[in-house]
């Protein structure tokens, strides 16, 4: 089945962390242990949002050593497509849900001597499981975590209490900025850099590190894109002979699935490459929203990533 094996789970706990963030704990329905995962993994949560099927990826933030459940933290996005609103407004303890087995697109490179981490806002979640994992073997890390305000700095208390000398917090509201050049200059050889947060932050961190001579294989980032909302468009599925219309708040992948066609995916956020699909005919413009295809791929126009990308024009036919 596309997207890998499913895990039937029960919601064990829902906790309001701050004004914008809720934490959800999932356990197996039969009390058996959850499948093992490594720090940085995510799970895709399936939702039946009043007839619309949503599958959104969320980083697992709990300790990989805890096999009794997975925890995710979800930031409410009032203008998004509704996945986070559904979780915030409708998911309550005791509910049965289906999630995917964990997939790790942001794993710790275990050869590193030290991990230098940069988190922005809700981008803290993969680091929580990674730091838990590192703490078990005494792995060296240094976390720089920026949030809009003290009230919105989720899990800062927990992190600074456990690792007072390794966690550094910054607040936009108080005009505190990460002194990136100084931090980058002080890292021992063999340090790997990890960044997760808003796009602007990721680009700033990576570009500054590259300019300072950090090599590409030591730079790691993760950014899940929510499928953007856009205009409706029509697509011909050449392999199955169907023609479908993608609604404004629906992704192409979701529309393919809604038509009963099985399509591959893993992250549903434009990062993993699993959903790559061949373009058979295109009279118009593909709106590439993924981080997977290269500029050359885009110029050739032979591929599309249905989990996040859209189309505008007369005719699009894809191999699905």
């Amino acid at each position, binding site marked *: 089945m596309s997207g890998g094996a499913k895990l039937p789970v029960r919601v064990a706990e829902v906790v309001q962390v701050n004004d914008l963030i809720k934490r959800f704990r999932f356990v197996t329905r039969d009390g058996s242990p959850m499948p093992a995962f490594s720090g940085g993994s995510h799970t895709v949560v399936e939702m039946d949002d009043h007839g619309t099927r949503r599958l959104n990826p969320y980083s697992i933030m709990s300790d990989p050593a805890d096999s009794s459940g997975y925890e995710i933290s979800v930031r409410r996005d009032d203008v998004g497509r509704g996945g986070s609103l559904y979780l915030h407004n409708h998911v309550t303890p005791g509910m049965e849900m289906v999630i995917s087995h964990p997939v790790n697109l942001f794993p710790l490179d275990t*050869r590193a001597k030290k991990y230098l981490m940069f988190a922005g806002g809700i981008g803290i979640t993969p680091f929580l499981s990674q730091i838990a994992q590192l703490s078990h073997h005494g792995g060296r890390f240094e976390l720089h975590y920026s949030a809009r305000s003290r009230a919105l700095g989720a899990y800062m208390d927990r992190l600074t209490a456990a690792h007072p000398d390794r966690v550094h917090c910054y607040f936009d509201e108080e005009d505190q900025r990460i002194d990136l050049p100084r931090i*980058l200059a002080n890292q021992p050889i063999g340090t790997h850099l990890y960044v997760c947060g808003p796009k602007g932050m990721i680009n700033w961190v990576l570009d500054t590190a590259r300019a300072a001579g950090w090599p590409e294989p030591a730079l790691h980032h993760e950014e899940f894109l929510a499928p953007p909302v856009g205009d409706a468009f029509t697509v011909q599925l050449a392999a199955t002979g169907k023609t479908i219309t993608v609604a404004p708040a629906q992704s192409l992948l979701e529309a393919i699935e809604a038509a009963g066609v099985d399509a591959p995916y893993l992250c549903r956020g434009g990062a993993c490459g699993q959903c790559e699909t061949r373009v058979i005919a295109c009279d118009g413009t593909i709106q590439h929203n993924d981080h997977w295809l290269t500029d050359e791929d885009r110029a050739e126009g032979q591929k599309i990533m249905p989990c996040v990308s859209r189309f505008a024009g007369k005719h699009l036919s894809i191999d699905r």
Partner: protein
Amino acid sequence: MSKTEFPPSIRSRPVYADLEPRPGRSHVAVADGEGAEAIVEMLDKAADRPAMLAALHILYAPGPNGTDQWDSLQALGAAQCFRAPTIPTLLPRLGRVVADAHMGTQFYLAGTEGLIGQAERDIMATGFPHAAIQKEHRGSTVRRMQCVHCKGITENVATDPFKCSHCGLWLFVRDHYSRRLAAFQGVNIDAEDKGEIPEPVVRFT
């Protein structure tokens, strides 16, 4: 000419490229024998040669064929320039340099495969990505071989097959390379038919 074109082989066989100056806060160049020429040529390509020299640490040993181009390196005027009599005496110094290095350091290795491989092994042991270490082969093509049977290393192997300097088995020289051991693999050539040992041919000079 000190450059060798290695014929295409299995994926395991290391390949090399010309050293290119890269931006960095410091630079470590390790070379033996004719590898000195690669360091000199790389510096000729530097956009800001004085700045690169001011942040450059060179470690050098003569090659296994006796080539000693120390003078050409010393004349460059790098911030630090160290000469060791042999590779085994160069490596402890490299270990110290690497232990004190910070991210933003660029590594340039040039010379024989034995020097390049051992320096790469020691640098990547810190967690620094091996793919980010630049390597340019120059000079002698003799090989550093591990006997897959007794695990002993024989340095500067010139013939194929060759006799393991530890256990005495006759070994066939494979292109199968171990980055962790910094050695090609030697496999017993007469394991099936004892005593049927082809005449050793000089393949590496």
